[in-house]
């Protein structure tokens, strides 16, 4: 194949392909999706709280929009996203510092990456479990009628 014929610019489709590299790819994908979701929430939250400056009526009107079952579901999603993003982010900080990667080894068939070991996989699972637990606790607070 001619080098010029290769199309390596997969763009967002390459970014969205979670199947090619296993769990670490899923984690990579989730870290970016949750990051973008949290940034959108952050901007929305700043806009939401700015209604405070217009007095109690504007604040009450904003709460009527956000403190609804749909608003609480979005908040639960934000709790899950932020917990996953934080826990997985801590794993990534250690990984980028070279911790938990294991020792380099000879590439043997089926050529599994040595770096993608049980420590990394369990880190991803711990992040997912913590996110689920945080969402359950958030649901008890938001939907518990307190």
């Amino acid at each position, binding site marked *: 194949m001619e080098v010029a014929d290769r199309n390596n610019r997969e763009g967002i489709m390459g970014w969205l392909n979670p199947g090619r590299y296993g769990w670490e790819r899923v984690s990579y994908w989730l870290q970016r999706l949750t990051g973008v979701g949290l940034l959108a929430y952050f901007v929305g939250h*700043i806009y939401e709280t700015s209604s*405070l400056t217009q007095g109690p009526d504007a604040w*009450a009107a904003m709460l009527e929009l956000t403190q609804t079952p749909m608003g609480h579901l979005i908040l639960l999603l934000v709790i899950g996203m932020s917990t996953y993003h934080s826990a997985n982010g801590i794993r990534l900080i250690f990984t*980028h510092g070279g911790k938990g990667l294991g020792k380099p080894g000879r590439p043997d068939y089926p050529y599994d990456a040595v770096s993608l070991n049980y420590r990394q996989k369990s880190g991803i699972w711990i992040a997912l479990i913590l996110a689920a637990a945080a969402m359950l606790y958030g649901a008890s607070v938001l939907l518990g009628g307190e």
Partner: protein
Amino acid sequence: MAMLRESQIMKIHYITAIAALFVVAVHILMRLIMPYSLSLEYGNVIANYHNIPYVVLLESILVLIAIHGFNGLRVILLELRQSKAWEDGVIILTIAAMMAVIAYGTRTIIVASGLGFE
């Protein structure tokens, strides 16, 4: 265009992440020290904004998450496509958006805390 090395930017990314974890945890705890719906009442929220240490905490959350979030967006956009024009455009856009969000959030904090202009 880049004034800092990417390794320095990533250190800032990680430091803002760890710092944000602590300040956001305190921010969430402030919603849980009383029943959640009560904590959102106008009087209670304004009382939070009149507490100077809490105002400092809110401002630090605003700055830390804006830096971390918009740098994260920059990284994602640079992973999608690479060219000089794209890179410069993404850097300008994310820095401008970050500054706009910090300015708008700071205005809310100043007005709600009664420290400045209306």
